[in-house]
């Protein structure tokens, strides 16, 4: 039973593009304050789902609430409330980090008196103060990714959506990234993250695994592995996913 204060609740959520079903009636809920992993191979429907949850595209079936707002009628309120960062999420390359930050502060309608403090904070957590007046296109990809995450947090969202946040990022930056995400959840922020790196699921409290638009498993990572491969204590989530795929095919 979904709780009333769950950050995300969706029931039978579906999205069709013409005759192609990208997401096929999925149901799940995300509890407030957890790191929720949305796992699956490329093309499984991860991006379509996260884009529906963020109010970018509207679902073709089902019901759902994100941060208490209806997916169908209140997408504008959802966009104002949540933070969203994607691997495709581009900053303006011909603007400086400072100018990009100011753009987001304006777009999120943050009151002007809070701007100096937020700008200070975001340069602190992203460690980008030294390059605040360089053009963003001159920064290395890892730094741009930090800036993008910082921009998504400028309006202090309680719910953060991350679409493939670590793809194409080196291992050290990835570790820093997950440390930072854990600190956010310690402050009570709920994080919804999609990834195709199965090993990253260990950072998540609970995960949903999808394939071809359908949920194939859900729960805490350890429980999924134990349930799917009970006789293999050394198996990880990747092994469990492969095993599930084989069973479905046979």
């Amino acid at each position, binding site marked *: 039973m979904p709780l009333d204060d769950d950050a995300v609740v969706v029931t039978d959520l579906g999205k069709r593009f013409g005759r192609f079903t990208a997401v096929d009636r999925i149901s799940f809920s995300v509890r407030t304050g957890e790191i929720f992993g949305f796992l699956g191979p490329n093309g499984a429907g991860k991006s379509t789902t996260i884009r529906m949850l963020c109010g970018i595209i509207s679902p073709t079936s089902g019901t759902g609430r994100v941060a208490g707002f209806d997916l169908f009628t209140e997408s504008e309120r959802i966009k*104002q409330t949540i933070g969203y960062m994607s691997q495709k999420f581009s900053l303006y390359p011909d603007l400086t980090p400072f100018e990009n930050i100011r*753009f987001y*502060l304006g777009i999120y309608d943050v009151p002007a008196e809070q701007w100096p403090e937020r700008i200070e904070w975001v340069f602190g957590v992203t460690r980008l103060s030294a390059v605040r007046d360089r053009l963003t296109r001159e920064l290395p990809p890892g730094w741009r990714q930090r800036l993008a995450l910082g921009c998504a947090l400028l309006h202090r969202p309680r719910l953060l959506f991350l679409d493939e946040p670590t793809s194409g990022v080196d291992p050290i930056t990835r570790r820093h990234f997950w440390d930072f995400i854990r600190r956010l959840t310690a402050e009570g922020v709920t994080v919804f993250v999609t990834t195709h790196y199965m090993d990253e699921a260990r950072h998540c409290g609970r995960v949903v695994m999808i394939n071809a638009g359908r949920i194939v498993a859900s729960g805490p990572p350890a429980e999924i592995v134990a349930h799917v491969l009970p006789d293999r204590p050394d198996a990880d989530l990747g092994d469990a996913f492969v095993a599930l795929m084989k069973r479905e095919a046979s």
Partner: protein
Amino acid sequence: MNARRVQAIARKEYYHLIRDFRSLYLAFIIPMLLILLFGYALSLDVEHIPTAVVDYDRTPESRDFIRRLDATVYFDVAAHPPSAAALTDLLDRNRVILGIVIPPGWSADLKAGRKSALQLVIDGSDPNTAGNTRAFITAFIAQANERSLLDTLNRQGREPIRPPVEGRIRVWFNEDLESRNFIVPGIIAVIIMIVGALLTSMVIAREYENGTMETLRALPVRAGEFFLGKAIPYFFITLVDVLVAILMGQLLFGVVMKASFWLMILASGVYILVALSIGLLISVKTKSQLVANQLAVLVTYLPSLLLSDFVFPQQNMPVPLKVVSKLVPATYYVDILNGLYLRDLSFLQLWPSFLMLVMMAALLSALNIRALRKEGL
């Protein structure tokens, strides 16, 4: 509509503009070049028509005739070919437009009161110049006739007779018949349309090409805020172009606006909005800077130049083209500018054209917002 979001987009757009060399070039250098080019090259006035005279008569009278002809601003006697055949050659090689042959015994016939014919040959390849040349030379000969008639009567000691009908012509609105006085307002209309539409045709396509459109979709930006924020910086840039054009028209060409400056600014503001809306609409529909650019030139530059009543009079156009010309925004802006520059009209007389421009701006803005909503804003 949230003012802070509009401001955030407008400021970002301003940064794009000042960091893009091409945009700045397009915004300021191109308009000035166009004014200089049109102002100096596109003169429709016919003066200093190159003329050749073959004088077979060789009398003081014939030489006097040639001297008087050369003294007018309309004709420059550029050559004195020895024979009619040499004159033909000059006309063939496009050295002269008017050829005059004074036959032998011309002044003797005049004195004797016999009919004396002058042969006039006009190069008709450019009908406009040829028509003007014909009108000027006819008037010049009529004047010469009148003078010699008066001389004759005078010598015979009779009262000078007056011609029964005398047309007294007064030109209104452009007293000196200077084509520059209507070319300058026309150029302003063409420049605003091309600069406004070209600049903005790139700005939404750029968001697609950089992948930032996906970002914007995820942000709480509404279509109206986005449209307005995008338009604001370009509105002011284009308004500066209008002021530069007015100033250059005045300083370089001495074209002074007769009517209210503020009425001019108001009309320009609405017209700029039309131009920007066309550019933005092209941009959101094509999603490619290159295609948008080409399309913007095609849709704005040629119709504004050819169909707006600026270069070619609409009254001479065939009906289908007349209908199309009524859809060209420049038609109404040129009408207003002519009213303001040449006729000193007031808003009471110009309101129908204002209304058309306002309706176009409103319709195009609505189409923009609809297109942006469809794109997920």
